[in-house]
């Protein structure tokens, strides 16, 4: 097997994550799809790190994880706050700024 296949897999997973972000309405599931996209990017980083024989790609994957953790914490806090005021976790219901 050619190690390039890891890159193809990461492209497929990233597209699936993007598809989920576009079609799901539940804010938490949308968040999970974003996590899937970040993970797919991490897989590409690790594969490129192996291609170049350097560990910098793995370090970048670590920083992606740090940023993902911070993003999840704040994002879930925002979802909880929206749920408290609007009684809904649907991304369609948060439309106060529209009018």
């Amino acid at each position: 097997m050619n190690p390039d296949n890891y890159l193809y897999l990461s492209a497929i997973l990233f597209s699936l994550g993007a598809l989920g972000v576009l079609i799901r309405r539940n804010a938490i599931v949308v968040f999970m799809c974003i996590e899937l996209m970040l993970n797919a990017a991490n897989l590409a980083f690790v594969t490129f790190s192996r291609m170049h024989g350097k560990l910098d790609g793995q370090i970048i994957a670590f920083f992606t994880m740090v940023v993902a953790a911070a993003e999840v914490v704040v994002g879930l806090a925002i979802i909880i706050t929206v749920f408290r005021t609007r009684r809904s976790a649907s991304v369609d219901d948060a439309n106060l700024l529209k009018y």
Partner: protein
Amino acid sequence: MSAPALAVIAAPVTSTGGGETFLFWVGAIVSVLGALGLIFSKKAVHSALFLCSVMICLALFYMAQGAIFLGVVQIVVYTGAIMMLFLFVLMLIGVDAAESLTENIRGQRWAAVLVAVLFGAVLLGVFAHAQLGPFAGTDAANAAAGGNVQSLAHLLFAKYYWAFEVSSAVLITSALGAMVLTHRERTTERKSQRELAGERFKRYEKDPSTIVTPLPSPGVYAQHNSVDTPALLPDGMPSELSVNATLRSRGEPRDIRPLPVPLPREAAGARAPGDAAADDDSDAHLEVEA
């Protein structure tokens, strides 16, 4: 490690070994199916479990590619901590919050599928046409400082020192942000137990059916002792009051079948004849007289 062995390991990789090939194909199928399950499962908890399976597959890929530490961190941080946070929030805001299926923008779903397919095709095309060199492999880089963790530490605390410091600021800011966002200010003073009791007796003045004593606790039996189990009154009837009002409104409380209580006659018969005389039952008196 001797120099020739290192040279063999550090040779460019154009094809992986049989074990890694097998791992890749199994993991690729599982992770793509997991990603599809994440998108298309109706319940958010199922989505979370599918995402967990994808993340574990990715951790195996990292380990197979020489990123041992990253693979472990992936399992500990992502599957362990972040997914737990997701499940925690899911439980907090209600797992059965139904998702609306009406489309606010007509044809948005099919447009989304089209966009995702095209985007994936573009990404795959770019990777297929790129001049990807032979894979150098991470073994030499890992062995440079005595191991994967040591080599990563040399990079992280020297070359990427500043980014490492900044990431700590990011984490502290996000922790503070979560606390500020979820904090709720009390608008009214919390009522003390004394005030609550006073209010209850004031209600009792107007409506004598108000219960002023503490409510009976749920039943504790050998078979079950959950809070939806009603306690039994002295006459064997289940007490409605002993079950929480929310549980009562949601459905009938758990059915209680009391153990068969022996009838007075059987109880008297089982005892010694001398004891039966103490019974004030008329039958027992008859027996003694006879």
